[in-house]
């Protein structure tokens, strides 16, 4: 395969973001809009992880016996990994709040269609 893993992951992340924006903007069902927002979050997380990847590198765990210079040249960049770990959990909790608001809206209006709720 001629395409690098990093470049292919970046393409995957961009396609997930495009699919999510399409779903959040053009689909009518409210739950599908929330699914699209979840895909946007996944795509952004995958983009950050793929930026920190180092081809042919090792996992950023310092084991005894490693030389410090060799480790700093070969380990993957660990800062986006620590931040993405927080971002995944925050994404899940905001999605739970969105689904709760959708359930309350369904009990008040009796529909999941955005056009019907907005009265268009």
């Amino acid at each position, binding site marked *: *395969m001629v*395409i690098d*893993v*990093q470049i*292919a*992951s970046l*393409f*995957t992340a961009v*396609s*997930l973001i495009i*699919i*999510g924006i*399409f*779903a959040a903007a053009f*689909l009518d*069902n409210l*739950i*599908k809009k*929330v*699914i*699209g927002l*979840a*895909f946007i979050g*996944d795509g952004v*997380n*995958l983009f950050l*992880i*793929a930026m*920190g*990847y*180092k081809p042919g*590198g*090792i*996992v*950023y765990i310092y084991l005894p016996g490693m030389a410090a210079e060799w480790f700093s040249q070969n380990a*993957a960049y660990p800062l986006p*990994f620590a931040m*993405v*770990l927080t971002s*995944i*959990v925050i994404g*899940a909790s905001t*999605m*739970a709040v969105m*689904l709760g608001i*959708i*359930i309350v809206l*369904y009990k008040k209006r009796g*529909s*999941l*269609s955005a056009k019907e709720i907005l009265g268009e």
Partner: protein
Amino acid sequence: MIEYLFMLTAVLGAILALMQRDLLKSAILVGISGASIAILYQYLLAPDVALTQAIVGAAIIPVFFALAVYKTRRMEE
């Protein structure tokens, strides 16, 4: 070489989840897409992120969607 298959599974799961009329199938396909993204994190040298994504993206988020579908209606009108 197998990581390209998981990239394809992530994108195809995302597209198929938005094409379903049954929202419960849609929730399961979101879980498949999240699980393949978790395996992809393992190949991108981030095993801690892969563990978190495997729990959150493959188990918790589909359960949230299934609960929301259970409280509202299953078929998209």
